[in-house]
């Protein structure tokens, strides 16, 4: 079930002036993915969108059997908005509701790859809650890594 199309999500959060960018994954990205998801990220690069200092990431993660497509907008290393774009499983779809997604607003990533605040679970949707939480952590890590790569590139 598509709750929000990707183009609407990007339009609502970044507007028309957004730019599509590419992040090539390095070893440290995969190590972080391993730590956060428990598996490596499948793929060598990730596309994301940027408008000024704000980035938007659209990532998939399997809840129980099928992937959940999650959109995350990050501003100043904090989650500005998290939306469930597509939910394919038969159970656990409650994670799409604002009462759940609002919990991620303004959270940031701690050095141990955990979120700065706790997320209340939803009974019957434990795996979906976990998947959404993991994706939000990985998106924050990816955003953080953009700065890290930028700093590295600027060092003479």
């Amino acid at each position, binding site marked *: 079930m598509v709750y929000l199309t990707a183009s609407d999500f990007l339009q609502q959060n970044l507007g028309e002036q957004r730019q*599509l960018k590419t992040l090539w994954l390095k070893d440290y990205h995969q190590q972080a993915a391993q730590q956060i998801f428990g598996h490596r990220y499948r*793929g060598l690069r990730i*596309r994301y969108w940027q408008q000024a200092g704000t980035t938007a990431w659209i990532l998939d993660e399997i809840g129980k059997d099928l992937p959940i*497509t999650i959109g995350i907008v990050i501003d100043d290393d904090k989650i500005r908005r998290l939306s469930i774009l597509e939910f394919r499983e038969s159970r656990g779809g409650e994670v799409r509701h604002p009462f759940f997604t609002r919990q991620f607003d303004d959270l940031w990533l701690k050095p141990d790859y955990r979120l700065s605040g706790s997320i209340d679970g939803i009974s019957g949707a434990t795996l979906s809650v976990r998947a959404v939480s993991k994706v939000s952590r990985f998106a924050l890590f990816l955003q953080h890594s953009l700065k890290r790569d930028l700093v590295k590139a600027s060092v003479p």
Partner: protein
Amino acid sequence: MLKESSQKLLRKIHKKIGVFFSLFLILLAVTGILLNHTETLQLNKHTVPAAVAARYYDSGEAVFGYQLLGQYYYTLSGFLYQDQLTLGPCEQLQGVASSAGGLQALCAGELLIFTDQQQLVERLGSVHGLPANISRLGVYNGGLLLESNLGVVGLNLESLEIASVDLPEANWPVLVKVPTVAMLDNSIQWQQFILDLHSGAYLGEMGKLLVDIVGVFVIGIIISGLVMWRNPR
């Protein structure tokens, strides 16, 4: 004590069943002996040639896919394969192409980009600006073409820029039947192969039933032999 006529009948049945099933019994005995020495003969370490395995393990179900640069691409149980190599999840393969030094596969409207080393680079869909309902994937002049309801467009895989193109004589992939030998890898061990011969499994359920029947008749021959032994002429 059996009657003379009954003894004659029993002898006749014993002989005919014995002759009829002797070949099966030899097969069962030989395969049984071989299996008994699996480790000594290293049957669990050596594999059956794919061509031989294809002959015995062909399920008869036709699998369709695409042939590209001498290799077959197809989906089985939700996974995309290149010959025997699993490339990743893919529900419905709609085409494959080779451009920009890599491989592209269209899976249920989503474009999967692989390196020439079969490593997944990324999955692209309408979220990345690709047209919805892509139905075909083609190559023209080394560039990638996508066909959707909106017509044929060219896609730059790096910038993801889409350019409309006049319908050229593109190289569109054609659906073909994938030969079993292309799907089977060299993973079937001799131990498995001989066990399947022994149990009849290489003929499917029918083979197992046949071996069961042989087993029942062997019991029958033993009983008839014992009866004849107890009732000499």
